[in-house]
């Protein structure tokens, strides 16, 4: 009974009756491993950077599985044509080949503390990793931030951008931080910046109470801290397709615990 169901045009398309539709919804949700159909909160129906990035990964996968993406692509063509699409790098494609699942996480909180106690500008980001399905282990995770070109004032300057993991928060003073990465950038540089946060996100999954988010700060070459917005880093108030997000690649963890007989 071999057949070639890729011949979509000749495929049987027929309108489902109500009960068939309900049965099919139930069955597909169970195959997808979902208890109910999700109801995402989409701002005015437009997709931001994370879904666009994930759709890029999806195209990479589906080109292998010869699945249909045109319809989905059409929906984004108008957006993508005018925006800068977040393209997956080679490294991400390698993670993708190895992964069973990829998740992008919405940035939950973002503070631009312009004048903190020691006058240090920084942005905070938090991600909710509590919804990860059982048995999935993170093989790689990235924090992605879009940097735009800056205004004339800093045009010929270089920035030192630092990403910290918040280790402990204090009500009356600055939080304890652990430096994850510091990167020197040209002020005029524009594009996506990726930061490896694999170890940090594994900690957050294993110990949710330690998930206190990330902080980003920027210094000029003269050591002066400037606001992330002045440095061109796009935050929640920037363009949808340049919003910061986090992406994690998962693989079903091989450790199988045998149930007692």
């Amino acid at each position, binding site marked *: *009974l*071999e*057949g*070639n*169901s*890729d*011949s*979509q045009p*000749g*495929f*049987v*398309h*027929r*309108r*489902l009756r109500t009960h068939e*539709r309900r049965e*099919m*919804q139930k069955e*597909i949700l169970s*195959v*997808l491993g979902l208890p109910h*159909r*999700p*109801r*995402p*909160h*989409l701002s005015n129906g437009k*997709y931001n950077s*994370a*879904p666009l990035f*994930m*759709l890029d*990964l*999806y195209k990479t*996968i*589906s080109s292998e*599985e010869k*699945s*249909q*993406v*045109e*319809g*989905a692509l059409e929906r984004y063509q108008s957006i993508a044509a005018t925006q800068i699409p977040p393209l997956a790098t080679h490294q991400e494609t390698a993670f993708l080949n190895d*992964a*069973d*699942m*990829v*998740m*992008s*996480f*919405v940035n939950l909180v973002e503070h631009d503390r312009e004048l903190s106690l020691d006058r240090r500008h920084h942005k905070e980001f938090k991600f*909710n990793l509590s*919804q990860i399905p059982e048995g999935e282990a993170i093989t790689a995770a990235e924090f992605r931030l879009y940097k735009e070109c800056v205004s004339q004032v800093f045009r010929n300057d270089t920035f030192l951008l630092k990403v910290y993991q918040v280790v402990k928060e204090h009500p009356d003073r600055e939080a304890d931080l652990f430096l994850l990465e510091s990167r020197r950038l040209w002020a005029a540089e524009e594009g996506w910046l990726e930061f490896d946060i694999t170890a940090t996100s594994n900690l957050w999954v294993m110990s949710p109470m330690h998930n206190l988010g990330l902080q980003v700060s920027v210094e000029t070459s003269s050591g002066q801290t400037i606001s992330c917005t002045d440095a061109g880093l796009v935050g929640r108030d920037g363009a949808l397709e340049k919003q910061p997000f986090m992406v994690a690649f998962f693989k079903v963890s091989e450790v199988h615990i045998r149930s007692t007989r």
Partner: protein
Amino acid sequence: STGGKRRHQNRNRSTQPQDGSRGPGLTDYNSSNQKTACKRHELYVSFRELGWQDWIIAPEGYAANYCDGECSFPLNGHMNATNHAIVQTLVHLMNPENVPKPCCAPTKLNAISVLFFDDNSNVILKKYKNMVVRACGCH
């Protein structure tokens, strides 16, 4: 009892590979009653049709297949049922009350990836390994 013409037609058909997309009812591998032979049925699942396009980003839909039909004796020259299905058919013939016929079930499954939102507007890209039936057989 099906008469010369049909048998001739049968012979033609059995030499060609099964092509489900030519529509139901054209294949009868292993049952005397042609309409209910064990075969792969096709139905295109459109997520838009299911009203799910707000949370499933891609694909638009996918070619769903399922196996349905009778597995009964005699099997024709192709013998594409598994061995124990053949034995089960014979035992069923001897004791139909107590021994069920072999069942028509998937023999080959393919993966499909689905991109969708969860309740928190996070985006999930997941590979589902056994989502699409590629071939059926009698077990």
